[in-house]
């Protein structure tokens, strides 16, 4: 579960105050809103990459407002994938387990499991340079999922892809959500992505986040 209680933040030249919303456990929330309204900032606040001016952020019922990003255990897929240059796909996906000093056999098994689920096992020894947009996003997704996070934050993971790849990626995200039961918050501009994926549709408007529609899995 993701909870924002009266969170304030600096967004460009403005202060956004009193942002309150909730994503119930296991839901796939899609957050939409105009460009520059602060959607990415909300994801960064959840991930701990920026501090709110005030308010409380809770994940799985625990106050994480002052926790470091590493201590929050969130899978984060940024807009362009932000893959690690120089590391192979296998190393990228195993990164979170390697920094946790998991045994090498466990890392290998987990990497195979995740890349198999995402259909990128054939890319294991490739480096990010030369991967297609769709492949990059799958690797970024695999990297975020490898350590088994309970919360997944996705920043426009599909928007840069071709129409055909978008449909594939949407199906893949649905499959990942169904198989892992992860609570997801997906930022996008696309109404069709929201229709396709959202169990909870949120909209960022005039500095506040409101619920547009819910077919919550936990209601």
């Amino acid at each position, binding site marked *: 579960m993701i909870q924002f209680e009266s969170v304030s933040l600096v967004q460009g030249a403005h202060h956004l105050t009193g942002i309150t919303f909730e994503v119930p456990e296991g839901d796939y929330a899609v957050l939409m809103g105009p460009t520059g309204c602060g959607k990415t900032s909300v994801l960064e606040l959840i991930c701990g990459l920026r501090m709110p001016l005030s308010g409380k952020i809770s994940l799985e019922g625990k106050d994480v407002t002052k926790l470091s990003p590493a201590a929050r255990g969130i899978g984060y897929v940024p807009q362009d994938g932000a893959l690690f*240059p120089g590391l192979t796909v296998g190393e990228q996906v195993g990164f979170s387990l390697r*920094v946790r000093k998991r045994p090498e056999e466990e890392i290998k098994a987990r990497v195979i499991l995740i890349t198999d689920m995402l259909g990128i096992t054939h890319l294991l020894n490739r480096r990010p340079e030369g991967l297609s947009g769709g492949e990059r996003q799958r690797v970024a997704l695999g990297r975020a999922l490898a350590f088994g996070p309970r919360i997944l934050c996705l920043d426009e993971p599909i928007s840069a892809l071709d129409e055909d790849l978008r449909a594939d990626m949407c199906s893949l995200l649905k499959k990942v959500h169904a198989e892992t039961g992860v609570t997801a918050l997906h930022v996008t501009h696309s109404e069709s992505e929201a229709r396709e994926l959202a169990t909870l549709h949120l909209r960022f408007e005039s500095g506040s986040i409101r619920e547009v529609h819910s077919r919550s899995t936990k209601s």
Partner: protein
Amino acid sequence: MQPKDNKDRGFLLFLTLFAGLYVALIAGMLFADATYTTPGHLLEALKSEEIRYAAKLSLTTATITALLSVWFAIPIGYLLSRTNFTGKALVDGILDIPIVLPPMVIGLSLLILFQTSFGQAIESVLPVTYRIPSIIIAQFSVSCAFAIRTMRITFDQISERPEQVALTLGASRAQAFWRVTLPQAGAGALSAGLLAWARALGEFGPILVFSGATRMKTEVLPSTVFLELSTGNLEAAVAVSLLMVIAAITVLVFARAIGGRRSW
């Protein structure tokens, strides 16, 4: 290639004129050096024990200085690029001082620093002034500032996003730095080291004041040029200058070859 009309041609000619003039100036200087001296003068210079000592000392101290400069420039450049702290503008300004100070003033300031009680305490353990360590300190004082600028620009140009993702994946800031950001800074570190090395090799003013120019002791190649010129031996001065040009170009070519081969 795009089609060009006459106005574009005029503009390109304007750009080429300035580029051509500057390239011609550099090439002209090198050509003048090369034609002024002969292979005989070069060999004679290399046979001189004093010049061989100065060459060895220059290459050794410049290499130590370059390594030290990169060693300092990486953390300082990263700090300036990725963090905000009280007094950052002041620190940033101070780091530029060696770049803008006249070289002689740097030498004089170092000389005075090592006359203070702090400097004397160091001197009592490791004699510095007018000895070899003073050459490295004089070179480092200037070269490090250039290396820091290069590393800061390098880190500024590396996207912070992958590093942030590493943090969300459980990495500490140090792990994110070592595993994600630093491997991307290889080419920048090489440039910083190269720039520091070239600066150190050519450093003269601070060394003359802080280390002196004693033959077979603290004489580096720029000091040799100065000493040979002051005794009217222009051929030897030019021969030594050409040696420095060859050394600098060799390192430049070597560094570019490494930079081209590796996917930094």
